[in-house]
């Protein structure tokens, strides 16, 4: 099982995890984290470390962040750059999160990363 930290500006992560729950049901080892005005990187490290400590029996952790270069990504990047069992994917959307839910119970981190990117991109389409 790969643990998932969904991290984004304001309540986006929280609400997106709720939306995904509506579609796929409640999920273990998924933690949404909000970054709100007045906070900085230190607050994010505290929240990330608390989330990491709360995971049990995970073989790796994937951060899904809203914006490349945003604070949630920057802090996650600093943590994940030093660890082989962590990675960060940006461009967070609902199809990405659902795609990750499908595969994360029995796959390696690199495969879940690939699935996140594919599902995130595949969900962006036009009607015509």
């Amino acid at each position, binding site marked *: 099982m790969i643990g998932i930290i969904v991290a984004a500006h304001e309540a986006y992560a929280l609400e997106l995890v709720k939306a995904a729950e509506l579609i796929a049901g409640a999920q273990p080892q998924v933690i949404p984290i909000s970054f709100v005005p007045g906070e900085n990187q230190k607050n994010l490290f505290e929240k990330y470390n608390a989330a990491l400590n709360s995971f049990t029996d995970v073989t790796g952790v994937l951060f899904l962040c809203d914006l*490349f*270069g*945003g604070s949630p990504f920057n802090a996650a990047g600093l943590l994940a750059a030093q660890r082989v069992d962590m990675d960060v994917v940006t461009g967070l959307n609902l199809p990405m999160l659902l795609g990750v839910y499908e595969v994360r119970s029995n796959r390696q981190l690199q495969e879940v990363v690939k699935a996140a990117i594919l599902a995130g991109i595949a969900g962006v389409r036009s009607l015509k």
Partner: protein
Amino acid sequence: MEIVLARIDDRLIHGQVASTWSRDSGCNHIIVANDGVAQDELRRTLLIQVAPPGVKSHVLSVEKAIHAYQNPKYVNFKTFFLFSSPADAYRMVEGGVALKSINVGGMAFTSGKQQITKAVSVNTEDVNAFKKLHERGIVLEVRQVPSNSKQDLMELLQKEGLL
């Protein structure tokens, strides 16, 4: 070097900066002037990596940033300067960097600081540095993103009884 924007933001390059301010300012280079990050290989690498498309980011010590400003080699730079504190901004000014206006964007609350807006908290050291910048005639305006209306920092400090 032309300075198109100077901002104090302890998050340095992040969402508001990478997505909004860099485009609004028309910069082609972002210079993060910060002694701590300049010595931290991991944070430095990440900040260079997150530069928005078409913009190159640099992480320099305050001293090196002053030298870069004075170097005629960088005449084509439209520079967006980023500092994490007013003290660093004042070091730049003392070093001869002609800042006319500073946008105050983010100074997180930590113990010993007083919150003056949702995103800006200050301690005595910050207030002293802001006073010195103000005495030099530099405009100090508080805004998160360009579309917010500007709030005068000195007025906010006055209102909070910090002057």
